[in-house]
């Protein structure tokens, strides 16, 4: 059973309108790499031009924020669910 990546509403137009996708992956980074290879238009909304996750993009494995695990090297196992949740930020200057 592969890893399931949940795709948030704002990004579904760039992922064939799908709400999830499944991949065989050993780490979160690998799953996100598969995701953005299959749906290339997603990449710029998740990663900076330098290839780093955007600061407002949070990734969870099941209910755990990967920042408190091993970030993109966080291992995944079959049946895990990866969620992509934005923090909303902005400002007038």
């Amino acid at each position, binding site marked *: 059973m592969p890893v399931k990546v949940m795709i948030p509403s704002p990004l579904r*137009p760039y992922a064939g309108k799908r709400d999830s996708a499944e991949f065989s992956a050993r780490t979160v980074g690998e799953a996100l790499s598969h995701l953005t290879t299959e749906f290339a238009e997603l990449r710029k909304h998740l990663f900076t031009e330098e290839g780093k996750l955007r600061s407002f993009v949070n990734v969870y494995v099941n209910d755990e924020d990967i920042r408190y695990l091993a970030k993109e090297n966080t291992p995944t196992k079959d049946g895990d669910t990866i969620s992509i*949740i934005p923090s*909303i*930020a902005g*400002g007038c200057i």
Partner: protein
Amino acid sequence: MADVATLWISGHLAEKIRAHGAETYPHECCGALLGRDSSAVLGSDRGKGALTPAREILQLFALVNRRDDSPRNRFSVTAEDVLAAEKAAREQGLEVVGWYHSHPDHPARPSEYDRDHAWPWYSYIIVSVQNGAPQDMTSWRLKDDRAEFSPEGIEIRHRAAVSATGFSTTEK
């Protein structure tokens, strides 16, 4: 992806956003826009009866600005807040379709910082608050290439007009 022509909101909710901006002045306010998209036939008031994508705001979910270091020119909503807003939306059969925030003593125009921290699809309402009094309110959508925002029209609608186009409202 085609831009949504117009964001529909009741006068009551528009006023609540403006009041929230005044209440938190000189700090930025923020909250979630709960609603839904529709391809309802807009019929006679659009002239040709063509299918036009439309987005309706039916509820607000006020949030606390988590930026206590520079709340006058920044706002931040944590992932936990986002999940809480999404839960509130789901419970009412709605979606989080965007976010609002205020620009104290600045125009209702998105900043570079806003652009850097946005996703397409969401509607971003900005209300300018000058000397504590709410002024212009605008709405924006980030373009697919992230290069800039497109303005989104805000149309103030009464509930009867909304229902006639196929939405069921839950506004209280």
